[in-house]
Each structure stands twice: as structure tokens, then as C-alpha cells.
């Protein structure tokens, strides 16, 4: 399936993480799915078991957003918030991001771009940190709340690494 296979996570520079994916919908629809809280809370959930009890989005320059995820079975909660810096509907959003649990005191800057290609939409999120250390620290501390299962075997680790590290 071309949509699933189009998914890539990369580290284009020492200070960035980039996620890209193709979707089977025009960019106006994908933009809505990323910016309307009643839609965001239906999909931005990670692996099964998580819900989004709080999803607030004030979509204007200077407006804030606030997400809280919860996993009842694990008894875990994770929060993230930020401020919109630039909104060009339905093509581009720039916003700050910060995880509640981050060990790193600064914000990161997210640039999300939607490009329509033959009725499909290519979405790319680039997260820019102040430094490589900030990137690795913030991302690790934010995501280590058990949102994923880990690999058990070295071979799986290595294939995951070679796909995504470089």
C-alpha cells in the first residue's frame, strides 16, 4: 500500500527530526484533520490503548494548543503544548512544541507542510531543536512514557536503526 510505505522518519540535520507521509485525500481535508480538535483527537493517538481526553486548538497566530494523552491500562499520562507562529491554510503551519515531561527547558519549532499531488497529500513535519543534545534529550524524555513496545532481538534493533538513523 503506497500510503503506508510512504512513511519515513529521518534526521536531516543534527538539530532536526523529520516525519513524512502520503495521504489519500486533498490537502484541505488533511489540513482539517491536523487542526480541528474534534478530528485530531480521533487519530493522533499512537498505538492502541491511548486516548486524548484533552485536545484544545486555538488556530490563529499567537494562539495555543494543548494535548493530553492518557492510557488507563498503563496508568500513564503525557502532555504537550505550544503556540502557533504561522498559519497558511491549507498548506503550512509553524508552531512551538514542548512536552510536559521534557528534561530540556526549551521549546522546539515544528513546521508542518501539506503538498497536494494528484489528489493525494504529502505531509512533512520538521521539528527543529536548539541543538542535537536538546533534540535527543527532549524526544527521549517526552516519548519514554511507554507509547511503544520495544524490540527484543538485536537483528530487529539493527534493521530499525539502519532504516531510521541516517
Amino acid at each position: 500500500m503506497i500510503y503506508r510505505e510512504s512513511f519515513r522518519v529521518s534526521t536531516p540535520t543534527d538539530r532536526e527530526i523529520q516525519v513524512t507521509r502520503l495521504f489519500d485525500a486533498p490537502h484541505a481535508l488533511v489540513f482539517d484533520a491536523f487542526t480541528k480538535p474534534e478530528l485530531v483527537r480521533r487519530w493522533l493517538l499512537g498505538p492502541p490503548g491511548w486516548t486524548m481526553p484533552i485536545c484544545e486548538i486555538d488556530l490563529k497566530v499567537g494562539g495555543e494548543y494543548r494535548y493530553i494523552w492518557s492510557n488507563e491500562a498503563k496508568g500513564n499520562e503525557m502532555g504537550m503544548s505550544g503556540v502557533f507562529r504561522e498559519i497558511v491554510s491549507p498548506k503550512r503551519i509553524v508552531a512551538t512544541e514542548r512536552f510536559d515531561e521534557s528534561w530540556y527547558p526549551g521549546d522546539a519549532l515544528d513546521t508542518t507542510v501539506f503538498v497536494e499531488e494528484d489528489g493525494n497529500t504529502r505531509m512533512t513535519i520538521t521539528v527543529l531543536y536548539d541543538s542535537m543534545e536538546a533534540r535527543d534529550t527532549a524526544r527521549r524524555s517526552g516519548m519514554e512514557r511507554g507509547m511503544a513496545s520495544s524490540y527484543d532481538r538485536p537483528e530487529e534493533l539493527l534493521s530499525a536503526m539502519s532504516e531510521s538513523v541516517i
Partner: protein
Amino acid sequence: MKLIDNGYSAPDRLDATFAALADPTRRAILGRLASGQASVAELAAPFAITQPAISKHLKVLEHAGLIARDRVAQRRPSRLHAVPLAAASQWLAEYRQFWESSFRNLDALLGEFKETSKKKKKHKHKKHGRSPQ
């Protein structure tokens, strides 16, 4: 911050791990060691580089704590030490898995929209067809 082996803090260790993994030859060496310990000569065999060059790569991997080398045996075989690898991999794996799962949910949601808009169009069509009577 919690200190782990070799006196590294967790993020420093992660930096050393990522730096060591940034080289394709070193990743290939780790891939070979995943199936069992090997000497420098055995590790050098598949590559078009010299044993001293392999030894340099092994030093980087050893410094990052990704391998352990036998100090006693003559051939000093290297073994994979997967703990730092697991920490580095978990970081990216969790990030990947979060987005991958979320995007699958989004595919389903966008599919629902398409169905709904198709039905609406059909509905309009029907209405339009009936209206002249």
C-alpha cells in the same frame, strides 16, 4: 540525571551510540556480531578494508559500549553488547511507532470522509433526479 555504565549520563551515552552507528561499516560489523562473536580477521573478511581499519571501527564501537572484546584469548573476539543499542533504538522506535500508528488511524478517518462525501453526492443526485416531478 541517572548515570549509566562508563560514567556517561543517559543523553551523552545516546550521543556516543548514535555517532558510532552513523557509519555503515560499523553497522555491518554489529550485524555480523548479532549472529555470534568474531575475531578481527573474521570481521574484516567481507569488507574491502584492512584489519587495522576494522580495529579502528571496533575501538569506536567499544568506546560507545556497543561491543565487548575478550582481553584474554589470543584472537580477542568481539561480542555484541546490545544495551546502549536498545536505548538508542527505543528512542527512534517509539517515535516511529507513535506516528505510524497515528497515521493509520488518520487513513481510516480520511476514508470515512470520502465515503460520507460520496453518499452526499449520490443523495444530491437522487434529489435532483426526482425534483422535476
